[in-house]
């Protein structure tokens, strides 16, 4: 058997996947060819090195956790999937691990914080806004306009919660420039 032929068979040889006759031919060649024998030893060596890696096991909690995740995943998957918007995010959540909930909630939390901060500045809440609270008319006017715009939206598209009422209260304390 020629070297090129032997080398094509070495993967199967390493895996003991050759028929007895062919395996014997390869073995005879390796007995007389140092290069092919070295290559065969390398292949076996690589397998052995890999297989020295320890086998891992899932945590004892694995199935219990999965049992908790499955109904949520199923419920989310039954909603009409959409490519964009809220449903898109839901499908993203559905397709992912619990960690993703954090990934989605974090930016929402940041966004809310910014809104509350701006709102707090507008209401003049203590501890919110620049330390040197100089009266900046244009900024005040801008915030007032924003609040009116929000209130207008809230009137056109009433919100389920008390947000609209809060906006109206805010508007009442805002005077147009």
């Amino acid at each position, binding site marked *: 058997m020629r070297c090129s032929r032997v080398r094509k068979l*070495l*993967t*199967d040889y*390493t*895996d003991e996947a050759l028929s007895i006759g062919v395996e014997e031919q390869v073995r005879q060649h390796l007995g007389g060819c140092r290069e092919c024998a070295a*290559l065969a030893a*390398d*292949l076996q*060596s*690589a*397998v*052995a*090195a*890999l*297989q*020295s*890696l*320890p*086998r*891992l*096991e*899932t*945590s004892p909690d*694995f*199935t219990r*956790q*999965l*049992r908790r*995740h*499955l109904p949520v*995943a*199923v419920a989310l*998957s039954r909603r009409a999937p959409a490519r964009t918007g809220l449903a898109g995010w839901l499908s993203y959540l*559905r*397709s*992912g*691990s*619990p*960690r993703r909930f954090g990934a989605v909630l974090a930016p929402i939390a940041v966004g809310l914080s910014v809104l509350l901060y701006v709102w707090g500045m507008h209401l003049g809440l203590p501890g919110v806004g620049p330390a040197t609270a100089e009266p900046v008319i244009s900024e005040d006017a801008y915030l007032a306009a924003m609040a009116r715009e929000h209130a207008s939206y809230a009137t056109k598209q009433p919100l389920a919660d008390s947000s609209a009422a809060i906006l109206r209260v805010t508007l009442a304390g805002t005077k147009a420039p």
Partner: protein
Amino acid sequence: MEVADLLLVERCKQDDIEAYEALVDRYRNKILNYVARYSGSTADAEDLTQEVFIKAYLAIKKFRGQCSFQTWLFQIASNVCVDRFRRVRRDRVAYSLDEPVSTEDGEVEREIPDWSGDPESVAESRELQALVQKTLMTLSDKLRAVIVMHDLEGLRYEEIAEVLQIPIGTVKSRLFNARVELRNRLRSYVEGRA
């Protein structure tokens, strides 16, 4: 074994969650090891394995038994890994063999004992196992997927061909290249340190 798998799959399609848990029990460690060795992160492996089994459950009604359940599960695991690894790799510094090796006991200095061209005989030690894993991570994704599926998870050539949708000849040549590369890189590291 396969017949039992397919029976369990049929029961899963009737929303029998216990049947699914039986399947999970059968394959969770196999998937965990594949995911951990392919991604190089034992920390994320459990999370990814959960993801694989959630996705499999959601898709099980579409599984028609065109391949074995294991093959189908590995297709999902492979996709999850490729997807996650693509994202993770951007965030992480590429593996370098000159860095200290991290083990569960913290970082250890690279004191390489005499391998005598025989890596497997000394790889029992934890730091060398970490070195094998790191060297594995230097292989291309394609080579690593095949060598982990075959040499660690025991998938047959035909099964890997089905999982990755490639010809059996390609599976064998990737396996050959992966083994040669792994061996050469381990050896060149040892000789470089000698």
